[in-house]
């Protein structure tokens, strides 16, 4: 190689590879996960039982799936706080439709289409109208949940017996929703990690203007991401309906916190351009271990809420610190 030798004025010296790897936030997530498992197994021997953990994971699998796509949206420099409300509204529409006698397959399609439409509304406001996604999706967070409340009132809507309990089906020895999460993680991990589409998401999140100048269809890609988000939320809503056996307007209430938390704990950079599916994947398990551990330790749900809130803030501070060290 005949690359000219740089002087100090031309470029900073390169950081050794081990340092680059060590400073990755995913490593922090992984370390915390191992630590959490040790701590939790000291609390209860159940934690060494894989089946127990897998079973606990079904409670968060729906959020975790949506969090994967949320990760991609945050990397692209946007945010979506509405998916939990989207889950509720699409599930309510689905439940309402089938309760009104519409055949199940059609009702399911209605639910999914509604989710897609909600994603489209977010995309329209953010991309076509150029409004900040952070405020738009607070608005739709309230709107979608409110519409779910209008549809379902304070009642819960039953779903047919056969539709209930998809999380209890075991495929390859694990609950089906957990398997779905694994597959989705793998697929999205590859999409984000090795495809042109994934690369362009990073480019957009790092510098959207430069990305557009480099010929990247920034609007198209971001629209696609919001649509994916809508569809995934609706799908997660239906899965939740199946797990719970009935639908109320407060389905998935507060889920946005958990999803954002999974992305942040996994080292996704809140200002875009950095983050991985692997990080969010690990963070989802970390969160499940933590919250199950807290339940086993008989902590009130409210205390758990406090812990989640603290975790969210600590994880962003930690991630920011790591990135600012590597950014110089």
């Amino acid at each position, binding site marked *: *190689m005949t690359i000219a030798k740089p002087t100090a*004025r031309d470029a900073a010296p390169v950081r050794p590879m081990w340092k680059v790897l060590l400073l990755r936030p995913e490593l922090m997530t992984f370390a915390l996960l191992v630590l959490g498992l040790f701590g939790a197994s000291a609390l209860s021997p159940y934690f060494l039982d894989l089946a127990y953990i897998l079973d606990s994971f079904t409670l968060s699998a729906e959020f975790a799936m949506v969090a994967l796509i949320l990760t991609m949206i945050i990397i692209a420099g946007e945010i979506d706080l509405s998916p939990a409300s989207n889950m509720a509204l699409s599930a309510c529409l689905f439940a309402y439709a089938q309760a009104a006698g519409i055949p199940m397959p059609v009702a399911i399609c209605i639910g999914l289409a509604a989710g897609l439409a909600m994603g489209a509304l977010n995309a329209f406001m953010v991309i076509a109208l150029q409004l900040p996604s952070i405020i738009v999706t607070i608005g739709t967070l309230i709107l979608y949940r409110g519409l779910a409340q209008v549809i379902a009132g304070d009642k819960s809507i039953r779903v047919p017996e056969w539709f209930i309990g998809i999380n209890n089906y075991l495929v390859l020895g694990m609950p089906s929703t957990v398997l779905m999460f694994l597959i989705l993680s793998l697929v999205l991990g590859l999409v984000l990690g090795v495809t042109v589409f994934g690369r362009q998401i990073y480019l957009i999140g790092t510098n959207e203007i430069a990305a557009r*100048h480099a010929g990247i269809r920034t609007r198209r890609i971001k629209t696609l991401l919001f649509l994916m988000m809508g569809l995934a939320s609706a799908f997660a809503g239906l899965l939740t309906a199946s797990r719970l056996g009935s639908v109320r307007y407060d389905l998935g209430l507060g889920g946005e916190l958990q999803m954002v938390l999974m992305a942040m704990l996994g080292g996704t950079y809140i200002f875009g351009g950095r983050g991985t599916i692997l990080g969010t994947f690990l963070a989802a398990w970390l969160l499940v271990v933590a919250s199950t551990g807290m339940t086993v330790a008989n902590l009130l749900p409210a205390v758990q809420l406090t812990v989640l809130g603290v975790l969210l803030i600590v994880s962003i501070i930690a991630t920011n610190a790591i990135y600012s060290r590597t950014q110089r």
Partner: protein
Amino acid sequence: MTAAVLSARGIGKSFAAVEVLRGVDLDLMPGEIHALVGENGAGKSTFAKILAGVHRPSTGGLSMAGQSVEVSSPNVAQKLGITLIHQEPISFPDLSVAENLVLGRMGGGWLQRVPWARLTSDARGIMAQLGVQIDVTRQMRGLSIADQQMVEIARALASDSRVIIMDEPTAPLTPKETATLFMIARRLRDEGRTLIFISHRLEEVRALCDRITVFRDGNKVMTDHVANLTDADIIRAMIGRPLKEYMHKVGSVIGEVALKVQGLTLPGVFRDISFEVRKGEIVGLGGLVGAGRTDVARALFGVAPAATGVVMVNGQAVSIAEPSQAIGLGLAFVPEDRAVAGIFRSLSVEQNISAAVPGKISRWGVISRKLEKAMAEAQVQRLSIRLAALRQPIGELSGGNQQKAILARWLLTDPQVLILDEPTRGIDIGVKAEFYDMIGALAVNGCAILLISSELPELLALCDRVLVMAEGRLTADLDRSVATQETIMQAAVPRSGVAA
């Protein structure tokens, strides 16, 4: 001889490892208009910012009327009576003009009452003193740049500044507005204030200033009375060596029309732009900042498309609404502001180089790291980009090498038409020379090049033809044989010439 109002001794400044200013001594006298001139990156703006407390000097110090002073922030500078007026005036668009005048200077505690009536009448008084008609109770939002500058000048008067620094104030102004500005500047000088006028337009310096200081490569070259110097003296001091030493045009074969533009118009920005660029030809686009040059380039590339007009690439009429379409047609665009529209700071050099050619580094949409690395490495060698490793973030490279990487990105697209917007801004002289060689080599290979530049020597040395824009219109199309600094500037300031 009267005592200096502000003296600089041995001022030096380094950013990171790069020394941008070395041992500058300067005495500013009361009642003078003092020009700071020099090429881009010569250090004149950095020096001005040190005077105004925006930067702290790495070495040396300032004194006012014999007393050593520590200008640690813009606010301190303001209290000492030094005001810097930025080229893009600082304004708080939601606040009233009167408030903008006093913001940050209101003393007292937090709950200090705002004396609205006094503010308003004081502001009116100052505006009257300046002889400008701006309603001080209106919001800043919507004021023209010229009016915003007036507000900044009024602000300097409101704090009774003795030293007022103007950083290229005339760049965005119309000739008429420039004339008003000069009139006011003279009046302020006659009141005994000191004005520092940063510019690289010698005609303006000559028309307005009493003394001149020339900077080159971070050094003060000379200070003298303007009247003692000819333009040639000043230019020689700025450049330091004959242009030909580092600029030369390689003869290339000029072929068919590659890019043809007819009647391109974007209302309020530019009107009726028509020109053509042939294969192997380097066409310069000159004019003042804000004349609409960058806007035309952005329109051609689909960043902000024009409303009407015809663009033809290789004889085919095309419509370009997105940069991706432009790239598909063989256009490439190195934008003016590297940090904003060029680099992906935290991403690796190779990712930066490959950003515009996803198809070349992937199979079935899957990126091949091997292909990407090989491709980036080839470009790094071709353009001799100096870096420590391909995987290091591009933000860790020097400005010149970042710019080379951007150029590498576009060379990978095999462009037939290359648009360069101020490609050598803020780049070391040495790297500049490399750039000129590269541009020449591209033309020899048959690439049509549109070069936007504010540096006249650059346009004159490199281009086969020079187009000039003023106020959104194309005002001249000069062949290499007739293009001079004078003809270009005349076309760039069409209406009344230089305000006197």
